[in-house]
């Protein structure tokens, strides 16, 4: 097969076995494919919406610079067509012959499994962590284990036996999955396969994965109803719940330029295919508050699979990252055959799920301008459960304070109306005011009067109003303790 030839099938390695998937099967969620087509029923489907982790598998993706680290992801929501040139390890691929791996051994000894239904997901998640830590010579701490298992629900154990299993893992006994599964694959063949665009066209379904942006733009112009799928962490759920069918899709993961995250003279550039995990890691030192927000954003599985641009373009009024990028005054770069344009994020959200984007346009990336010295920020997410929950209210505040005076203020809120909002009037009031408790308390009271939240199953309008008001006071309280500029 030569490089310009169009392929009609996905090449995927499952527990080391090369598998070609074509036609209708390529549209199945990966978990379903594994269970019913690949005879690997160890992977479990519980919620079918990426919120419980029972379907967790390990995935390494090949790119021209080699294989990525094995990362966990939720196989229940991701269609098989997203996994071209991926190596997937399921729970069945962890033991060698009869010999359990170190995670499995410790999970047995410490009663880490009770009913066994969440166990394959937990074992895969912990194996991913062990693989990563052993590879980097890092130790397994309780904090890391907890963070890593955020996306795995267990109803039996109360997690304590699982934590105890994880903390007794001896990384010296870890057998690298990379060595076992990736080292034997011929990379020259992969280089050729990587250059093949993919088209899988069925009577009622079609998936296109072009290898360059121009082709993608042409396709989007010819067929504007093609739905762009990056991680499918939202669309996959809609599909599984029969609310929207992912039948006509455009996949951008074979276009190398869209996977870039980099610091440029204009700021931080996040390409359309960059995952939330990549953003979190990239920002760890430069935007610590942002990185912290992303930590409680979602589970590792979702962040490994979902993209930042997916979250921005999904544009939910409770999208966790949105208020932060609104105050950072990020700009969205949109492309079409007609050319490129730049839309400030503050102008992008026009109404509930109504955005400034045309049917033939593709969002190629987000530019986040650098912050000048002297700014400090606070991002809050308030939800029923701290982690792995959708927020009731989100708050982003960015301030420049000099000599106890507020020089600049930017405030955005989520969960308080049909779209995320900036509060320009309030911001104007704050500029020039004293950095004081009463100013922030007044601002909170005013913010309360500016928003009209709804009551739903996550919170009542009264709670949203009260929390919004209080978050200004909390923000003051915390900023005054760390008044030194924090960015």
């Amino acid at each position, binding site marked *: 097969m030569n490089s310009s030839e169009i392929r009609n099938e996905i090449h995927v390695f499952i527990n080391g076995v090369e598998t070609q998937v074509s036609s209708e099967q390529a549209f*199945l969620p990966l978990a*379903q494919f594994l*269970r019913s087509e690949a005879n690997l*029923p160890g*992977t*479990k489907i*519980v*919620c*079918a*919406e990426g*919120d*419980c982790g029972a379907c967790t598998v390990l995935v390494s993706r090949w790119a021209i610079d080699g294989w990525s680290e094995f990362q966990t992801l939720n196989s229940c929501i991701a269609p098989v067509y997203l996994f071209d040139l991926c190596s997937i390890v399921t*729970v*069945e691929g*962890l*033991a060698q012959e009869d010999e*359990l791996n170190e*995670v*499995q051994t410790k*999970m047995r000894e*410490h*009663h*880490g*499994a*009770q*009913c*066994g*239904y*969440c166990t*394959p997901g937990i*074992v895969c998640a912990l194996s991913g962590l062990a693989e990563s830590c052993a590879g980097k010579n890092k130790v397994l701490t309780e904090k890391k284990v*907890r963070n890593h*298992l*955020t996306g*795995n*629900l*267990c*109803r039996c*154990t*109360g*997690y*304590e*036996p699982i*934590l105890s299993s994880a903390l007794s893992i001896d990384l010296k006994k870890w057998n690298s999955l990379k060595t076992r599964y990736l080292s034997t694959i011929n990379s020259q063949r992969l280089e050729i396969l990587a250059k093949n665009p993919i088209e899988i066209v069925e009577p009622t379904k079609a998936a296109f994965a072009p290898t360059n942006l121009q082709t993608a733009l042409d396709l989007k112009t010819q067929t504007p109803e093609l739905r762009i799928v990056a991680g499918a962490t939202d669309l996959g759920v809609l599909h*599984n719940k*029969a609310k929207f*069918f992912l039948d006509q899709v455009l996949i951008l993961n074979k276009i190398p330029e869209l996977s870039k995250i980099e610091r440029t003279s204009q700021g931080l550039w996040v390409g359309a295919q960059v995952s939330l995990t990549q953003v979190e890691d990239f920002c760890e030192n430069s935007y610590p508050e942002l990185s912290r927000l992303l930590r409680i954003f979602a589970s590792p599985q979702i962040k490994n699979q979902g993209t930042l641009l997916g979250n921005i373009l999904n544009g939910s009024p409770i999208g966790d990252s949105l208020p932060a990028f609104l105050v950072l005054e990020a700009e969205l770069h949109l492309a079409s055959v007609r050319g490129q344009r730049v839309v400030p994020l503050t102008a992008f959200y026009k109404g509930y799920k109504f955005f400034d984007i045309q049917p033939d346009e593709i969002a190629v990336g987000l530019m986040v301008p650098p912050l000048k010295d002297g700014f400090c920020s606070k991002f809050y997410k308030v939800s*029923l*459960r701290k*982690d792995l929950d959708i927020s009731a209210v989100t708050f982003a505040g960015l301030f420049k304070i000099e000599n106890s005076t507020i020089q600049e203020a930017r405030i955005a809120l989520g969960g308080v109306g049909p779209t995320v909002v900036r509060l320009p009037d309030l911001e104007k009031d704050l500029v020039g005011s004293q950095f004081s408790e009463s100013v922030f308390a007044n601002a909170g009271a005013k913010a309360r009067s500016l928003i009209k939240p709804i009551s739903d*199953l*996550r*919170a009542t309008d009264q*709670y949203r109003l*009260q*929390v919004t008001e*209080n*978050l200004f006071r*909390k923000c003051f*309280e915390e900023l005054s303790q760390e008044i030194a500029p924090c960015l």
Partner: protein
Amino acid sequence: MSVGKNTPHDSSRGHVTGTSVFIDDRPLQKMEVFVLPIGVPCAAGRLKSIDASEALKQPGILAAFTAKDLPHNRWGTIVQDQPILVDDQVGYYDEPAVLLVADNQEAFLRARSMVKIEVEKRPAILSIDEAIAQNNFIYKANPFKCGDADKAMAEAPHKLAGVFECGGQEHFYMESQACIAYPLEDGQIEIHASSQHPTETQHVVAHALGLSLHEVVCVVKRMGGGFGGKESQAAPFAAMAALVARKLNRPARLCLSKDDDMMMTGKRHPFKNFYEVGFDNEGRILSLKAKLYSDGGAYADLSHSILDRALFHIDGAYFLPNAHIEGFACRTNFHSNTAFRGFGGPQGTMTIESIIEDIASYLNKDNLTIRELNCYGKDKNNVTHYGQKLDHNPLPDLFSDLRIKANYETRRKEIDLFNATTRGKIRGLSMTATKFGIAFTARFLNQGNALVNVHKDGTVQVSTGATEMGQGVNTKIQQIVAHAFGIPAAMVKVMSTSTEKNHNTSPTAASSGSDINGAAALKAADGIKQRLCWLLQNIVAGTPMNDIAECPPVNTKLLDFTDFVFEKETIRHVPSGKIVSWPELVQQAYFNRMSLGEYAHFKTEGLGFDKARSIGTPFNYFTNGVALSEVQIDTWTGEYKVLRTDILMDLGRPINPGIDKGQVTGAFIQGMGWVTSEKLFYSKEGRLLSHSPTTYKIPNVQDTPRIFNVEFIMNNENHQNVHRSKAVGEPPFLLGISVWTALKDALRYKAQSRIPNLKSPATPEDVLMELTSYE
């Protein structure tokens, strides 16, 4: 010796390698079909028509069945009042009414919405208050009375009256309801189900299809969690699958999606309890009058027994000299609420724990002091409000031991200081107890049977009525039998539960799985041992055993069990010192034509309860424990976390301490979830909206206490149970309540002179709104 060892779960290797087989992991048979139940679009009213014609035109859709296709359409454990498929009156929103059948699951995604169900709506009853107002009850319990509650109340120096409300709870077993029905020859049906009660599943299937019980077999290998949710409610889904299997003569698989499962199946009963408590200046309870109202949902299910258990557990760990407790199970238009770990016990006990917090607030005293003051005594004040005496009561020691172990005094002072000096955060501390009565309150359920087969290589297969749902009952039975024969646990396999091997079994419920089935298995093993001992005694005595003569029949009068020791795969005749290896003696027994299998029946002795007077001994014994939890609230948002929990439990002599510890941590966190983040949210029309983990929040790994200590006390006194162990499944669930009372304790620091008013679950929103009301 196997008993008392920390043996890994008998399925652990399968679990960690993904090779354990659950219902939906069973390979698809040729011709197998999938079944999708579809529910009605209203909570109350009448079903007018069902039109599946459009759906039937879709590719892959094979058939649709309704109530008309069922020979019998009523089931129910206590009262047969619930339709398998709605035939006329609607009980609740999304109640199954039609079965769609397809040859692939994908077909359902697109065809489902094409099924048209027409209903005539009627106003629904969607709260306990409305049910009370309309006098709509499933069951009224006989009141529990002790002493003279009215007189004591009138004379009490202090009185508080109030309402305690707790919400329902979704089981959230990871494996949703699942079953496959295989049609057999001669009209028989074999059901493989994820069920805690294979016998009831067998009965409901047979009844629904008009079959005799001997024409239906129900097999349960394991469940991906049960927690009570598969005690009664696995059965109707099995009947649906069986109907399809019978109609099409093809295997039929029904595995609910999580959303459908949550919408269609019952949950923990919400309760609304009205009470009046009288107490003295020190906080000693003198009288308690309470009316407990549970929300039973649309049908009876197990609501009677659940309400009874709430009445039994209204005392918590505290002595009630005078009490008058009434109970009512309300009929509403919600899914029919059902068994859930604790079975009414938590709803009763939480009421008194809440009352104690209120007494402490009212008298401005330390909450632990009030608890210790009221705690059941060892020698006096040790009779419950239903007349059962507490033997070897460890509760006073548990309270005082944990007070010391967990540094209560120091931490209370630290919290006082923290709360006085910190902005934006408050902390609270509270210790609560569990005193859980062990036995089914329906006495006839306290029986079980077991079959033990020894094979010629000395390995053993055991079958009982217990079902494995992760709790480790099979591992405990494996250990008990291995221990009895003196062989390694690996030589014993506990087999699938099947009504073919064990008849008329009780559900694996009421924490009693290991007690009843373990005891039955031990009894069966002892029967085999008796013959082997007799054989060995004859070998020692030189009784001729050859082609002409064989071992004489067992004469128990000539046999002293204590002469024999079974250990390390040998049997030793102590008086002679003769040792024979286990496999060898087994072989000898076979050649002497002695049975190597035994069936045994076991019943719990000493139970008796006079329902008319609400007096007697309903329980075999009590499992006890205490927990101290410390919480921290963010006063800006109402969000909170559990900083530390210390648990001290009395589990007798655990058969498997590792498994028991896992039951304690798991139950505690599940209990914590019930009182904190697990909120069921319904639309105004009565439809469940929080029907998946996106909106229904069970605790995740970040929610567990940052410091979490679990310890057991030594207790060798529980002679009335197998190997002096104690049941563990449900009792620690009640300790999760300590997180909620700790939140209440924290609020005290801001409430000034008020008594904090909190419902359960106490979500961050509830906590913030309560805090805001103090300003």
